[in-house]
């Protein structure tokens, strides 16, 4: 398991964590589609995005404040975890494949 330090562009959004905490949800990317159209998590919980496809994806998040956060390049077989601290609605898209999109509702 490798650890990479990043900086997030959006306040309230934490990208990835290093603990062994269990993700509140796991989203698969397969056939250029997210496995869920929408999920709801509590603030502070994390969601794992798994690339089960045979092509590379580029995850971006649109925050409740409307800011776009590009972009995490995720190759086939890789997975990325995001922690959502800010309450509200997020939109997740693949910048390479714009038809891939889903929403995340973050509640208290």
């Amino acid at each position: 398991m490798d650890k990479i330090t990043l900086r997030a562009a959006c306040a309230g959004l934490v990208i990835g964590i290093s603990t062994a905490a269990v993700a509140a949800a796991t989203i698969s990317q397969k056939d250029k589609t997210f496995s869920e159209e929408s999920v709801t998590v509590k603030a502070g919980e994390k969601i794992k995005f798994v690339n089960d496809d045979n092509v590379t994806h580029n995850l971006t998040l649109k925050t409740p404040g409307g800011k776009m956060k590009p972009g995490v390049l995720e190759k086939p077989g890789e997975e990325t975890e995001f922690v959502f601290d800010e309450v509200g609605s997020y939109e997740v898209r693949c910048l390479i494949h714009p038809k891939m999109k889903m929403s995340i509702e973050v509640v208290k």
Partner: protein
Amino acid sequence: MSHHSSTETDPTTTGHSQERNIVVRFSWILLTGLLATQGVKAVEPPQLDALKQKFHRPASIPFPKDNPYTDAKADLGYTLFFDPRLSGANTMSCANCHNPALGWKDGLGHGVGHDAKQLGRATPTILNLAWAELLMWDGRSGGLEDQATGPIESAGEMNQPMPELLAELAEIPGYRKMFREAFGRDEITKERLSQAIATFERTLVSNKAPFDRWIEGDETAISESAKRGFVAFNGKGNCAACHSDWRFTDDGFHDIGLKSDDIGRGAQVPDVQSLQHAFKTPTLRNIDQRAPYMHDGSLANLREVVVHYDTGFVERPSLSPEMHHLGLTEQEVVDLIEFMHTLTSRDDKISIPVLPTKEQVTWTR
């Protein structure tokens, strides 16, 4: 085995330091592996059948809830599409560039706009766009309603200020009647104009091609060479990584290594490396009707296209990770081209509409 995802965000531009763990997982794509090394006869029927399933045509055309289909609206859009009065000089209709006789484009390497000036990119086809999202080579348009009036108002293309056009159309009794039939009111607005054209454009769907008949079970519909080409398309050629689904496009944006200074999608999304020099994946339906190829019209024929993907691309940081040197044999090149020919359908003939004029007080269709 371990490798990292990479980020395309500049970590120095933000104020929050976080950590990210990446768990690398082994992923075996068994079918792809088989296809990469074996021909069509070596692929077991269940595997081939599963592959064919990915390319089945949809049963119906999707129309958006906020612009549902009606005959009157599609008929109005059809009439507007072929009307040269939509241009400032009254000489260019949408069909000048999106010519149904030329695969809904123009047969040129670069489009030609107002005053016969050459445009910066090739004209994209408008075939099968009902399923598309983000239009234009660089994705700058969100959808058909948004796109429809863009070229009309563009100074370099049809060069028609919208207020002038709406006033011009309002002077034509036949158009007032058609807008009333389509929208319930005579008033001609930009929104209604775009909705009508978009509705017509959504009806432009390619018919079943020999390939469709093959995946439906007719083994005689395409040649053995084309069947091998289908396997190579999904395997060694890796074409289906982007040219996926029944339209043979992922509606995505990829840098395929064309030698050009045009950064395409990168101009819209400047901070993302993989979108620099990236252009929208075009459909391959009826592709043999639309030479020359690529956003810049730089490749004259399908052989040049296949050779480009095999050995002709420029390697640079933004190059799509789906691009690899393929090592195709001459027979595989031939098979891939043969396969692409099977995607061409015999489509319904399009007649040119009789346009309403100011002199026609009573307009009947």
